[in-house]
């Protein structure tokens, strides 16, 4: 079932030059996309390609100038449904420090349910569950700004989960993290997806799209291609055009395959590839 449906969506920004003349800048243009229940969707593209604009269109933070965004059949332009939509689409942003409302971890996670007017006992239960889901239950009473980037971002995810959304949108939530933090956040996202959550991951790290069901490549406000990770990695012309590179392991596998090695050219796992290469070397 399609839970999010974008039809010919365009959104433009206004910018002003030094004389005060306004001009239109494309955020996204003519984008159509549908996301199904339980899918892991990755939106990739270089900086300024419109992926963050697209994310903000998904829960009505931005409204389309033309076209339509529907979430569970509700139009985001319908202001009376906006809280219903935001209850269904949780969103986590790039900078963990800028989305903390309260300084104590559990208070911050409770912010969403408190806004919804949920009874106190249930908030406590939701906060606990959400923190367990992201593996941060032991940090409930801690001060948020003293945690690591990955931990803060997991708290932010818990804050979104406490609202019990159907879709979790991670808007470049890994961009500011170190490799370890990225791994933590990505692990949580995958785990949530396995337990049934629809996840939309927005990123410019190609390694992160490996496990996605659907990859959407954005370029200059348009959808350049949608497909499985392998379809995208194999389309070298597209990748060159949009300025992206397949993950290192994939690139290496392809090169080895081309050079006549007995390696699966669709191999995506670095460890697996390493093992295979070792095997081949030992044989020779």
């Amino acid at each position, binding site marked *: 079932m399609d839970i999010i449906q974008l039809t010919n969506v365009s959104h433009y920004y206004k910018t002003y030059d030094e004389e005060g003349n306004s001009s239109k800048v494309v955020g996204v243009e003519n984008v159509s996309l549908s996301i199904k229940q339980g899918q892991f969707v990755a939106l990739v593209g270089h900086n300024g390609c419109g992926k963050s604009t697209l994310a903000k269109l998904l829960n009505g933070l931005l409204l389309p100038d033309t076209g339509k965004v529907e979430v569970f059949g509700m139009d985001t332009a319908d202001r009376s449904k906006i809280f219903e939509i935001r*209850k269904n689409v949780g*969103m986590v942003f790039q*900078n963990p420090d*800028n*989305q903390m*409302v309260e300084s104590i971890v559990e*208070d911050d996670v409770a912010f*969403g349910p408190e806004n919804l007017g949920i009874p106190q006992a249930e908030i406590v239960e939701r906060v606990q569950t959400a923190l367990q889901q992201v593996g941060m239950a032991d940090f409930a009473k801690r001060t948020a700004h003293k945690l690591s980037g990955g931990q803060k971002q997991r708290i932010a995810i818990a804050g979104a989960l406490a609202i019990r959304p159907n879709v979790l949108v991670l808007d470049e939530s890994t961009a500011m993290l170190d490799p370890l933090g990225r791994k933590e956040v990505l692990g949580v996202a995958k785990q949530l997806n396995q337990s049934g959550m629809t996840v939309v991951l927005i990123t410019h790290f190609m390694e992160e799209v490996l496990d996605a069901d659907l990859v959407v490549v954005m370029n200059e406000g348009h959808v350049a291609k949608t497909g499985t990770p392998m379809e995208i990695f194999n389309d070298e012309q597209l990748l060159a055009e949009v300025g992206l590179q397949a993950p290192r392991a994939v690139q290496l596998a392809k090169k080895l395959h081309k050079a006549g090695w007995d390696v699966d050219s669709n191999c995506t796992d670095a460890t697996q590839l390493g093992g295979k290469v070792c095997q081949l070397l030992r044989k020779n």
Partner: protein
Amino acid sequence: MFRDVTFGQYYPSNSFVHKMDARVKLLLCILFMVGIFFVTSFVGFLWVTLFLALAIGFSKVPLKSILKSVKGIVVLLVLTALLNVFFTKTGNLLVDWWIFQIYDDGLIYAGKMFLRLVYLVVGSSLLTLTTTPVDLTHGMESLLKPLRIIKFPAHELALIMSLTLSFIPSLIEETDRIIRAQKARGADFDTGGLVQRAKAFVPILIPLLVSGFRRAEELANAMNSRCYEGSTHRTKMRVQKLGWRDAVGISVVVVVFSAIFVVHATKGAWSNLVPWLYF
């Protein structure tokens, strides 16, 4: 340069006073500050001293951190004391030298004013030392809640305060980063006259302002995404329950200050019988 800035002066502990409800502590602190102005005799100050000693003892806050906050107003203390000493012209003349006359009343007034100011600071810093800023804002919010009838935005005010508190560490970090970035480009903050130094801070303030706005926008987006719509039908996770500690605290303060108020109110009637009480 901002590394060692810590906000607030909370002294973490598990003491009796720490465990008291923030609202109760706030109210008692206000009562204390009002009450201290009704203390007009040294006997009364002895009472207050005993009370404060008791409170500090039960808060487990080292005397050093309390005196640290008194240090902040030393200039004010010395100034008020001197003014009182030299400008009171009643009582017996003790010293008469050149243009200075010191009367015994002046010394007594100065002493009382000095004690009053010190105790004001000690009392209020005991509140901030034993209550986290977060608890304080939550306490304030629930105390101000009844004012919602006259459309007073208690929740919004508390939210603004707690957002400010939680953004201070990241803004300090940001300032630090900008300063280092500008220094790396050859900015000079340490030499030149006052005007020049002030001008040198413009390249820090502007990026800080810009990033402040960016942060505010991101935060607004995050809050919107989490269904924030002001105080309408909002619930709270924290329940603030009064415990036996609060009852004990309230009783002690009420007893101490009732005594002070009674003594103050009956000054005319008793001063002949027990004059020492009013010294």
